Structures are given as C-alpha cells and as structure tokens.
C-alpha cells in the first residue's frame, strides 16, 4: 500500500519546486501539468482502494514529531476528505490546461503557485493533527495572495490585502480556540496532544461550559469566515472578481472552511453548552447567506462579480445543511461542496474567456455572444443550469438534500433559502439572456470562441457535473457513511 496521504502533499510540492526552476512558459506548463496528473493518479489510486462503507480513517500514517508538546505527523483519508481531494485533483490539471492560452509574465511562478496551493489544500484535508492542520491552513493564503496581487485585475492590491488580512485574522482567532482546546485537554489527561480526533473526544470532558462555548465559537468563526458565510463574506467578491481566472478557480477549490465544519465543528457541537443555540445560529447564517448572496448577485453588472456573489449564496447551503445535523442533510452539505467546486470552475472559466476574448465582463456591454461563441454558450449554459439547480445536474441533488432534510429541524431558515431559489433562477437566466442571447453587439468586434485546451478542460468538468448529477453515489455513498457517524454522535447526545 502506498503512503498516499503523504504523497498527495509531497508530489505537488516537489513539482512546484521543479516548476519554479523552469525557464520558459512551455516547460513550466508541461511540468506543472505532469505534476497535477501525478497527483490525480495518486488520488484515483486512493479512490480505488478506498472502502466507502467504513467511516474509519484510511491510509492512516502517524509518526511522533515533538512528543513534549504532543505534536505528531499524522495523516489519513476518510469519506469527508476523499471527495474534496478528488475534486481538487480533477480540476487542477484541467485548470493548468485551461490557463495555457493566457499570456502572462513569470509563468514559472504562476504554475508553481497553483501546485503549492494544491499541496496546501490537500494538506488541510489529510492532516489529523492540529499543528499540521493549521500550518497547511495558513499556507493556502500565500499562493492566493500572490495570485491576486501579481496577476489580478485593476484593484488587485486592495483585493489581495483585504482577503489576506480578513481571513488571516479569522484564522488567528481559530488558532486561539485550538490553543484553548489543547490546554484544556492537557489538564484533563496530563498528556499533551494536538491530535484532532483525540482533542474532539476530550472536548466533551471540559468542565467549564463557558470555556467550551468560547473554544467552539473561536474555531467556528475561523471556518465561517473561510467558507465564507454571511456576515463574514465581504472579502469574497473583491478577491474572487479581481483574481485572474486561475486564481478564482483556486478560490473555488478552497473548500477548507466547509471541511472544517464537518471534521471539527459538527463533532464538537453536541457537547457545547447550548447546542440548540449553536444550531440555530448556524442555520440562520446559512439561510441568510443563501438569500442575501442571491439578492446581491441579482444586481451585479459585472459577470464575474455576479458569479462571486452566487458563490456566497451556494455556500450558504453548506452551513445550512451542516446545521441540519441529520445524516442526509449533512451529506447534502458535503455534496454541495463537491458540486459547487465543479460548477463554479466552469462559470469562472467562462467568465475568464469572455473577458479575454470580448474585452469586457460588464453584462450590459455584452450581448448575443452565443452566435460567435457557440462552444462557450453550450458549456456555460450547462454550468448556469447546474448552478441554478436544474434536476439531473449536481447542484440539484445537493440543494434538494439540504433543503428536504434540514426542514425537519430548521423549517424557518429553509423557507428563507427556498425564497432564494426563484431569485437564483432569475439572475442566472437574466444574465445568460443579456450576455449570450439576443442580437449580437457589434461594438465588440470579432470575438473568438474557445480554443481546444479551453474546450477540453471545460467539457470534462461539464461532463462530470452531468455524470455526478445522474449518478451521485460514487462520492455520495462515502459522504453518507461519514455523515451517519456525525449525526449518530449528535443523536446520542440528544441534539
């Protein structure tokens, strides 16, 4: 058995270093592509050897690192992390392929950053020790910051600093929560440990209810700001829309906030001082995110900003489903993370092509692009349909599961989210109609369609959206297995 979890971090890092040393754009692309394919191969190996009927940690490795502080090098993969690793491993090579046709300076750094990002995100998913988890969590900031700061749009400086400071401060609050958990557990057991699962187990034995709530809220805040959930979302529209296309897609693949909810917050939640209140708050934030994100998306003039706000709206389902805390709602929320990653990748790639080929992203300045860009029109249409929740595509399954199974516990917030469905359909169709259909806007001049590598990258993702929309079980089964464990734990605690 290969030590897959470690290799999944190491391989992209090694290829990132090699890519950084290349001299030409072509070399950098080839090497980065090879690296991402190697990661994809490892991920498929993990997937094929994975037992989706077991909620236990698989491919587990653990080595003592700093015994006097209880820090271990400890990694593993389970049904919560594998679908997200799969998402990342599938989209990254396609993203590199897609980025080929864009002109830019310093390609070697650009592709190296994409691979560092991949290593960091996968690192968060496989880490089972809070020390490593936090290191990888913070490492994700660096590639994203430089992506936006160096290759972003006009307001890239502002957007990159805002994103960095906002989410960095939120992570630091999370770190304080982790420290609190570490010392509280140390006092109980007499043995220092940063092991995530050990600390979650010890959490229930903390005597002081106030301390429990403080720890839980500090960690939850870090996750909610990263998802991002209303009202901590204000960094997102700037960062997503100012980033280059590849940067936006990397943001979309940054599913670590939602992952943290499932891995850490939900197992802790039943043991907090007031679990009902925590659930209500999470439900409220999730429901409001869905509606508020949709309302803001409706009034955007810039196509990419509209997509960015729709992302806030869709990520609301993750928080909402997590708050539902029954097997199927949590599975739906997990599936929404997977589905959202695929769908948003298509949308941002479409917006990137339109911006590059037509010269503008302002919706009203476009018009009738479908006649000049038929390939784009088909793929983008599919992305938009998936995003608005058309049955048969992945978005529908995720949102259906979340709404149906959360209703029993939080009917009011589900109704808020339901209101948004109409608006969501509205802004998607309206934007599509104005930008793609109707009479061609002659002011745009001649506009080229997708080239081969762009078509290939987007078509593969589109096919996956369709495939998992019709047959979600290859990833949904393992999510359900792990959600059962989470929900069972909550039920046993009487929540």
């Amino acid at each position: 058995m290969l030590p897959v979890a470690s290799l999944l971090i190491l391989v992209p890092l090694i290829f990132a270093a090699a890519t950084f040393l290349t001299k030409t754009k072509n070399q950098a692309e080839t090497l980065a592509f090879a690296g991402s394919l190697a990661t994809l191969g490892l991920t498929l190996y993990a997937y094929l050897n994975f037992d989706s009927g077991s909620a236990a940690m698989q491919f587990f490795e653990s080595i003592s690192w700093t015994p006097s502080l209880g820090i271990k090098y400890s990694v593993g993969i389970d049904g919560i992390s594998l679908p997200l690793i799969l998402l990342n491993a599938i989209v990254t090579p396609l993203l590199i392929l897609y980025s080929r046709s864009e002109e830019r300076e310093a390609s070697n750094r650009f592709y190296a950053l994409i691979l560092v990002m991949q290593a960091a995100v996968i690192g968060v998913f496989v880490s089972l020790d809070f020390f490593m988890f936090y290191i990888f969590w913070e490492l994700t900031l660096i590639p994203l910051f430089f992506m936006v700061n160096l290759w972003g749009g006009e307001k890239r400086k502002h957007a990159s600093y805002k994103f960095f400071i906002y989410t960095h401060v939120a992570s630091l609050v999370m770190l304080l929560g982790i420290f609190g958990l570490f010392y509280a557990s140390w006092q109980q057991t007499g043995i220092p440990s940063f092991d995530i699962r050990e600390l979650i187990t010890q959490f229930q034995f903390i005597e002081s209810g106030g301390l429990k709530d403080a720890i839980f809220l500090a960690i939850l805040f870090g996750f909610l700001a990263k998802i991002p959930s209303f009202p901590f979302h204000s960094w997102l529209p700037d960062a997503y829309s100012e980033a280059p296309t590849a940067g936006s897609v990397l943001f979309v693949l940054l599913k670590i906030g939602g992952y943290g909810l499932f891995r850490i917050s939900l197992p802790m939640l039943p043991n907090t001082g007031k679990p009902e209140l925590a659930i209500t708050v999470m439900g409220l934030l999730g429901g409001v995110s869905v509606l508020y994100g949709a309302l803001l998306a409706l009034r955007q003039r810039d196509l990419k900003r509209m997509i960015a706000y729709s992302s806030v709206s869709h990520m609301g389902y993750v928080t909402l489903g997590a708050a539902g805390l029954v097997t199927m709602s949590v599975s739906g929320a997990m599936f929404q993370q997977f589905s959202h990653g695929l769908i948003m990748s298509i949308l941002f790639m479409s917006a990137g092509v339109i911006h590059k080929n037509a010269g503008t992203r302002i919706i009203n300045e476009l018009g009738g692009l479908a006649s000049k860009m038929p390939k784009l029109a088909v793929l983008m249409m599919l992305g938009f349909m998936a995003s608005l929740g058309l049955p048969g595509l992945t978005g529908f399954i995720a949102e259906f599961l979340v709404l149906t199974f959360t209703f029993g516990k939080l009917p009011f917030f589900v109704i808020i989210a339901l209101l948004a469905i109409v608006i969501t359909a509205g802004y998607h169709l309206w934007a599509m109609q104005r930008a793609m259909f109707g009479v061609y806007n002659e002011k745009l001049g001649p506009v080229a369609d997708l080239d081969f590598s762009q078509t290939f990258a987007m078509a593969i993702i589109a096919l996956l959206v369709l495939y998992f929309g019709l047959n979600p079980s290859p990833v949904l089964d393992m999510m359900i297995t792990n959600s059962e464990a989470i929900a069972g734990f909550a039920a046993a605690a009487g929540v």
Partner: protein
Amino acid sequence: MLLAPEITIAVTGLILLLAGLFMSPRSKNLLGYLATCGILIALILTLDSFGINTTMFSGTLSIDALSQFFKLVFLVVVLLVAIAGIKYNENSSHTEEFYALSLFATFGMMIVASANDLIVLFCAFELASLATYALAAFEKQNPRSLEAGMKYFVIGSVSAALMLFGMTFVYGATGTTSIPQIAANSALLAASPIGLVAVVLLIAGFGFKMALVPFHMWAPDTYQGAPSIVSALLAAGSKKMGFVAAFRVFIVALAALQPDWQLAFTLLAVVTMTFGNVVAVSQKSVKRMLAYSSLAQAGYIAMAFAVLSPMALAGGILYTLAHAFMKAGAFIAAGAVVWMVTSERKGQPKLKLPDHLDSFKGLGYRMPLTAFSLMIFVFSLAGIPPTGGFMAKFVLFSSTIEAGLPWLALIAILNSALSLYYYARLVKYMYVLPPEGGKVREPLPYAIALVLAVAGVLAIGLWHEPFVQWALEAAKVLV
C-alpha cells in the same frame, strides 16, 4: 572544567589581540579563522556541558540548563558574526580589535548567563556593554557609526547606573548580593517601599538592554548606524543578555515582588510589540526596520514575564534562540547588501542610506543566496511555518491561553499579523521588483554565515523536539 567555554573565548580574544600587534593587514585575515575556531571549540564545550547542574566560586556562578542554553545562544550569534567578519575585516588594520572586542563581549554575556550574584552580574554586564559600545562605533570614518556608538554609550551608562542603584536597594534591604539568598530574604523587600523602588530601577536598567519601550530610544539609531554585523551581535546577542539577567533577577531573586513587576512587564510587552511593529511599517532603511522589528520581538519575549508559566518561559527561551538565528542572519544579509552597494559605488559619493529598500530591488536575481536567506529570516520573524520563529511563537502564544490571558494572545497575534506587512514588502522588493544592476558574486564568508543561520532557523522549525526539551529544562531552573 565547567568554565572551559568562557576560558576558551577569553583566551582566544587575548591571543588575537596580541598576535595582531605583529601582523600586516593582509596576514591579519588569518585572525578571523582563528577566532572562528576558538568559538567552535567553545560551542562544543558548551554543548558537552548540558545537563550539569552545579554552582562554582562560593555560589557566585551557577552552571545549569538556563545558563548553558543562553551561552549557546551567545556563541551561535558570535560564530555567525565572526564568520561574516572575515569578509567585513578583509585587509583592514583593525581586525584584531574587532575580534577581540566581539569575543570579550561574548565572554561578558556568558558570565551574565551564569551569574548567581548581583556583583558578578553587574561586572560581567559592564564588560559586555563596554566592548559593544566600542564595536558600535567601529567604523571610525563613518559619522553614523560614531553617532550609534555615542548614543549607545551615553544611554547605556545611565542605565547601568540605574541598575546599580536598584541593586544597592536590594542589597540594603536583604543584606546580601547572592541571588538565592535574596530570594530567601525577599519578604523583607516586599515589606518595605524600597522593594518597589528597586523593581522600578532594575526594570529601567535591564529594559535598556532588552530595548523595551520606553527604554528603546538608542536602539533604532544604534542598530542602523553600527556596522551590520555589529548590529547582529547587539540585536541577537547582547539583547538576550538583558533577558537572561532579568530572568534570574526578577523571577528568581525578586519572586516576592512578583505582582509588581509582572504588571509592569505585561504593560511593557504590549506597548513594546505594538510600538515596534507600527513604527517598522513606515521605515525605508532596512536596518532600521529590522531594529524596530527587533523591538517588537523583545515585546513578544517579554510576554514570558507576564505569563510566567513553565510553558511561557520555555517559549520565551526558545524564542531567544530562534531570534538569535533569524535576527543575526537578517542583519548579516543586510550587511552583504550594504557591501554590494558600497563596493559598486567606489569612487562615487557615498549613499546616505546604503541599506535603503531600493538597494534590495531584484535581489533575488542579483544575490540569490542572500535574498533567499533573508526571505527565510523575515518569514521566521513574521512567524510563518515551518521556521523557528513560528515554533517559538506557537509555544509562547499558546501559553497565554493556558494562563487565562486570551487578550494578551490576541494582541500578540494581531501584532504578528501586522508585522507580516513590512516583512512581505521586503520580500516583494527582493523577488518581484526588477533588479537595478547585474549579478554579484556573493562573498563566501557571508554566504557561509547565512547558510548556517538558515539551517538553524529551519532546524528549530522542523525538528522541534530537542530545542523544546532544552527550553523546558532551562525554564525549570526558574520556577
């Protein structure tokens, strides 16, 4: 032979001083290698004496985990300085003075680390200080260097007087200068207002060396004006002497007055780190920026006095070691850049600020090794994993949570987030902005010193266990 490392250092210094009398400037280049060898021997002897716990000379010197740990810090710093000094003193006629002064300063610092008696502590403190005053003014033709030495000397002398004054109060109230006996009699101090006066005077005296705000006025000017490698010795070595002396005097001797000085250090820590970071943001001179960042780092270390748990002290002690590597390394890298800029402009009028940020433009291309090392050092100073600075902050900041001071952790953490701004700006100058000149061959001594410092920073960051263990052992001496 428990004092073997100190004796080695002192004897090496004397030999160099004597040998220098009979050598030509060219052959004096040998002296740097000799000094390096002496320091290496002392380093090995110190490492060998870990685990010994005893006192010497009627209890005036104590050999324990704390003293040996700090000796290690001082020797590491002076080793880096000595190696880089081989290039700095190339073909100079004052080589032997440079090395002898550095070694005498180190000798003083090492005795301070062991001092278990106020008189011994003060004498050693002064030995180290006098040597560093002269070193700060080492470039006799450079007005900035003279200003640096002068400021350092005047303020240093006043602080030494204050410190001595504080010590006389302690002696007056307890009737002894031995630290363990003061600790035994410290109830006498706590009972009278003299105790408070002594605490205030001692904080002012040590605060000067530790460069805590508001006793920091000399630090930016001195660190900026002094030769870069001397700044390395001051910021990374001599500052730590202030900390180890304060650890022993306050935590061990004045334990009965803990509520008073703990409050004072809490305030000083918060003010120092915030002031240092905020002011560093607007600096254009890299050495001055490093000086303010050094203030901020002293503020973090001073948190150990505020929290006072074994974990916090271990964190503070670990921080001094990490800081020794990263700050000495950063100043040496700045020294390499100053060397590059001045050697390029031979014959032209001298630059006012050779260490201006603009000199660092495109350094990643011009001096790849220096730029890469400097990047590692500033990332470590900012507390980014996987560096020693991150690990030290991790231990130190986490300890505040244990002690129930989340607000202090929050201030410290926000401060280190703020510091990232000016550190990242330096990295941007080095790697993003285009170079203003061709590639430069990096002098070998600088390169070796930088590689050693990088190795130290990464070793603490990746292989924490032995360092954390040492720091915990050293902290046990205090509580």
